[in-house]
């Protein structure tokens, strides 16, 4: 399910109940329905830095709940939530000087080494935030350029050109990783060869 759902009838009763009661169980029902998608976006927008992602995720829900009464169903609820998540992540990015580079291995704890997604996760985490947003929203979350343009408040043409650049940048990083791995292998092989050589003197 890569494509975002169209405005979903399943969300309307949940939102209606929350707006009518404002109670915890109604919130939790909404939360549990959308948390995996929104958290998946937030975690990657934050370059897989858990602490930052958790803060952005919390702020996303606070703003969403505060503004839910003004939501007009002009998009899917999930799209609206993702838009809030993008804005919250951008604000944190602006505030955080230290967020330019991951503090630790960005794929750590989310996938095992050797899984195909790990290199992609690393490459995405290493991208500049603007490229990361476009690549995630289009290629991973399946949003159209029109939807992305609306979410990011840009022109659809800008979304397309940015996507092209983002893919190129991510590809370069993936190829860079591959070169590093080849270098490491070469070093290891050379060391093994040196260790096998008979010692002289």
């Amino acid at each position, binding site marked *: *399910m*890569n*494509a975002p759902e169209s405005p979903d009838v399943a969300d309307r009763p949940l939102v209606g109940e929350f707006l009518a*009661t*404002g*109670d*915890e*169980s109604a*919130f*939790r029902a909404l*939360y*549990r329905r959308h*948390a*995996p*998608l929104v*958290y*998946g*976006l937030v*975690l*990657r927008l934050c370059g897989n830095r*858990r602490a930052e992602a*958790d803060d952005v*995720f*919390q702020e996303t*829900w*606070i703003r969403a*709940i*505060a503004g839910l009464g003004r939501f007009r169903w002009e998009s899917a609820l999930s799209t609206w939530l993702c838009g809030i998540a993008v804005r919250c992540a951008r604000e944190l990015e602006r505030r955080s000087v230290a967020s330019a580079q991951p503090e630790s291995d960005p794929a750590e704890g*989310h996938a095992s080494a050797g899984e*195909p*997604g790990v290199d*992609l*996760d690393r*490459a995405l985490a290493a991208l500049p935030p603007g490229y990361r947003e476009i*690549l995630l929203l289009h*290629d*991973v*979350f*399946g949003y*159209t*350029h*029109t939807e992305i343009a609306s979410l990011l408040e840009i022109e659809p043409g800008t979304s*397309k*050109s940015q*996507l*092209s*650049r983002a*893919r*190129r940048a*991510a*590809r370069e990083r*993936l190829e860079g990783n591959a070169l590093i791995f080849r270098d490491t292998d070469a070093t290891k092989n050379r060391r093994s060869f040196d260790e096998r050589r008979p010692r002289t003197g």
Partner: protein
Amino acid sequence: MSEDHEPDEAPLPGIGLMRPEKDSPPELEDRIVAALYERRLLRSDPRRRFPWSIAAAAVLLLGLGFLIGRLPRPALPAVAQPRFILFLEPIPQGSEGAGSEAARVVEYRSWAGRVRQSGRTISGEKLVGGFRRVGAEGGPPRLSASEILGGYFVISARDFDDAVSVARDCPHARHGGAIVVRAIDPT
């Protein structure tokens, strides 16, 4: 995506196979609920509402008990399981983490609710500072349990391991407080 014309650069191999969803940490849900209460974005906790239907049923049963000449016996745990006590050592100063006291109360309450929903019983109290010691006057000074306890919970659990797993999930441990688990003698 029919409206989109693909850009020059092809998608990265395998990117279409990445799952958009990621499981959020379970404790984050309670943290967010607590934050929403703090900002008054949730109106009330339904678990705090008085269950009038249960109260009405209780009054009816009590009346029936009198009618047949027997007072109702104290309720037994829903499942006759061993009981354990979780001693909560005070959280060291500066280790409490972010969030207000009210937010922490909501966290503890949510945890207790989950314990109950899992079929276990739970009760407990938070202790306030200060104590008086009686008995064993003149004996050597010892560290009293009163000095090291911040509160306690009594829970039912299948066995010791089960009780420890309940304790591990308690917000007290996440906030830097130690929990000592001991079995209650069933006799």
